[in-house]
């Protein structure tokens, strides 16, 4: 039995859309993915529609308002689906977990899959409003984000769950993009999350207010320190620092 077969996405409710945009926000650089995911879930009042069940995940639950939650969950509201995790994905689980998510996503006929992440940026404290970079898997995917006028990532190395999302989506003929906000690498960065949420709002032509996120930025920075530390450890195991290197073959 392969590791992938040991991972199951259990649906607890039907999706409200038959052609959704699927966002993936996981703990990564500056916790941009998880912080933006949490804000979107709260502000859009998204409902949990599925969770990931696997013996390979850490034996833990998250308790919110007295309710039991699995670490990796899927939310939905209208045409928007959001996959998020409250634990950093362990290195050995990255590929099988992402393959399972993409296989599940394919059954939902997605319009676009988009990852919400950060790009480690030296002197981040000098930057007032972080810029968002993008990377598309195909011309079709690029067409979806053309109107956003984002800088394209032309050269470099990506490490972690998001490059696996792009590659697996590409192999499955699903249009996918990575959104990457300039961010602190090793500190939670709610400012970078706010920038990426604005791009998501423009992509979906919906108004997503980030005032509350900006206002509670310091509180988020305090309360996500432990998750950031664990994520940092996982990123180091994956060789995340290679993202600052120049690839050996370049055009």
């Amino acid at each position, binding site marked *: 039995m392969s590791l992938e077969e040991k991972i199951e996405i259990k649906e607890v409710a039907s999706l409200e859309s038959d052609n959704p945009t699927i966002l993936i926000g996981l703990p990564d650089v500056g916790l941009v993915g998880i912080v933006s995911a949490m804000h979107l879930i709260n502000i859009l009042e998204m409902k949990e529609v599925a969770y990931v069940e696997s013996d390979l995940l850490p034996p833990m639950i998250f308790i919110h308002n007295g309710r039991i939650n699995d670490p990796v969950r899927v939310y939905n509201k209208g045409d928007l689906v959001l996959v998020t995790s409250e634990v950093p994905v362990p290195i050995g689980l990255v590929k099988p977990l992402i393959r399972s998510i993409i296989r599940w996503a394919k059954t939902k006929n997605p319009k676009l899959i988009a990852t919400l992440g950060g790009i480690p940026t030296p002197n981040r*404290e000098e930057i007032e409003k972080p810029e968002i970079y993008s990377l598309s898997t195909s011309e079709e995917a690029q067409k979806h984000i053309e109107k956003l006028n984002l800088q394209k990532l032309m050269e470099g190395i990506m490490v972690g769950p998001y490059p696996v999302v792009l590659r697996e989506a590409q192999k499955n003929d699903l249009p996918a993009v990575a959104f990457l906000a300039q961010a602190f690498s090793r500190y939670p960065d709610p400012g970078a999350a706010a920038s990426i949420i604005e791009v998501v709002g423009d992509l979906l032509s919906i108004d997503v207010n980030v005032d509350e996120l900006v206002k509670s930025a*310091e*509180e988020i920075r305090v309360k996500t320190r432990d998750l950031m530390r664990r994520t940092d450890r996982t990123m180091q195991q994956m060789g995340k620092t290679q993202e600052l290197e120049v690839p050996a073959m370049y055009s």
Partner: protein
Amino acid sequence: MSEKRKHSYWEELDEMFEEMHRRFDRMFEDVFRDFSRPLMDMQQCVLEPLADIRETATDVIVTIDLPFVDKKEDISIELLEGSIEITAKTSKPICFERLGTTQRKIRFNEFRKKVKLPTDVDFEGVTAMFKKGVLAINLPKKVQRTRIKVE
């Protein structure tokens, strides 16, 4: 002459191994400290901030994330033998309503962090900058330079 060179060579090797041991010790201490407890001291109501240490050829750069710290006057940096200790008072109490499994309400007023330095530094040239809640401390490395003639 050759005896003297041999002696200095073994001394250098000893120093190198000692430095390696010191680095390994620090690494293991960090690993165990990291995963043995959360980033807070509930007894003393002190939070541990996230910190990053980088090295360039000439400097050690320590940065510390200090949310809720508004003024540079509220930050104290102490230089110790082989480490630095940073203390910072928050502008208002940071309150956790139901903390962890004890579900206790607890307030924190201060960040405190001791950072072990990877190498000897020159305390005379240390500078610090606090910008947008991030403290950056620049510590010049103590280097002994000897010019070698190429033959």
